[in-house]
């Protein structure tokens, strides 16, 4: 059953060098459709760099990535329509309101129908308990609230691949639970795949189908659901 899933992302010999420092060395892995892949590792292991390369935000020094058999050089805009990204940096404009930010990013994904944008924003705001804050500038929000708005921004255009870098940081218990439920619900839908990084190994164990453990820029261990249940993930950091 698992083997029948199609290959979604293929990373071949990915290396990234910053000056003399290699943040990633010869990373090779494949991601199948409709799974949640967790990327774990200690601080400085290269999780965020790998995530940014997968999203096309930075280019690898060596190696190539294909997403649905397409690469960023030739099919950049097609790939970007398919993906939703949340990184360690906030993409929100501090001086604009939550509504204006979300409308702006939905417009960039070629949705200009104001009614449908309004409906979507209202639904997500209700789901994430942000209805009262919708016309508030982002600069007035707490870190956790900003994180919620970031997640709404990612979910808004209904991407089929989600790249979430530390999505649980700054979230309270109820929002963490809400996010876990939302991710599980998305996985249930056809062709939605999620790649996320987090330090919280208990969350990884709760939702991930596969876990990739990075150590000093290299893949230290790749674990399936059956394998990681029995062991302590931190021992491979």
């Amino acid at each position, binding site marked *: 059953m698992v083997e029948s899933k199609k290959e979604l992302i293929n990373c071949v010999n990915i290396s990234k060098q910053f000056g003399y420092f290699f943040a990633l060395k010869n990373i090779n892995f494949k991601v199948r459709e409709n799974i949640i892949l967790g990327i774990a590792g200690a601080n400085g292991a290269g999780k965020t760099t790998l995530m940014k390369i997968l999203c096309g935000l930075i280019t690898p020094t060596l190696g190539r990535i294909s997403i649905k058999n397409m690469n960023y050089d030739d099919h950049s805009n097609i790939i970007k329509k398919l993906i939703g990204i949340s990184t360690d940096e906030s993409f929100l*404009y501090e001086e604009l309101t939550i509504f204006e930010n979300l409308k702006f990013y939905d*417009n960039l994904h070629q949705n*200009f129908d104001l009614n449908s944008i309004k409906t979507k924003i209202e639904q997500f705001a209700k789901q994430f308990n942000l209805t009262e804050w919708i016309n508030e500038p982002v600069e007035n929000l707490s870190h956790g609230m900003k994180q919620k708005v970031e997640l709404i921004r990612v979910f808004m255009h209904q991407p089929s691949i989600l790249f979430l870098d530390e999505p649980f940081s700054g979230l309270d218990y109820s929002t963490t639970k809400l996010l876990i439920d939302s991710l599980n619900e998305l996985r249930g839908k056809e062709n939605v795949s999620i790649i996320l990084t987090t330090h919280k190994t208990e969350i990884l164990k709760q939702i991930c189908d596969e876990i990739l453990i990075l150590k000093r820029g290299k893949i230290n261990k790749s674990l399936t659901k059956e394998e990681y249940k029995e062991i302590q993930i931190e021992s491979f950091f």
Partner: protein
Amino acid sequence: MQNKDKAQKSSFKMFKTILFKDIKSEIRQINDLFSIFLFDIISVFIFSSVYSFSTEGQNMPLEIFVIEVWLIIFFTLIYLMSKLFVKEKESGTLGGLISSPISGNIILFSKIFYCLILLSFVEIILFLFSVFLSAPSIENLSLGQLMIFIGLGVLLPTLDLSICGSLVSAFSMYVKNKSFVLPILLFPLILPITTPIISLNIKILEGTLIYDLVYEIMFIIAHITLMISILALLSQTLLYD
């Protein structure tokens, strides 16, 4: 054909979306713009006062007036450049733009247009104050000449400066010491057009016929074409690390 029209319409809508977002952000941070206006007005005031004091209250010659105004505009451009790509990079929002399914050219051209609007706005205030404070010797300027001055003498060079400013801002956004690099990169780019801009302004204000302005106009248009070509060719490389 229909697909091409649809793609063009969609590109234009994206362009408008980014431009309106920038203008809205600017209005919400109006203090930044006020400080630029203040810099311009104080510069004009100091320049005019010094001239008036040293010449015992004579009217400022046209040549000095034009040089004064454009010198202040060049320095204002350095402030405005930090509002383009540098600001997006520093606030982390550049990632949101480049991870969206839009072409790099749309992002670049929307920033050029945004810079053009800001710079034009600054120029209106600057020219009004400088005419009032410097009292230049401009005589018998007809409405037609005034329109030629605004179109060819001000807007055309402003477009050129906006393109240069956007190019430099995009070039320097990944550099650590931006405040040092911005002027160093900008001045060699705008140096070739400094003389044609000043000469064009003086000639128009002196009432020279448009026929005699061809060389200056051609030079500025050639510079615009060159800068736009560089931007279009490098758009993908410029926006990515």
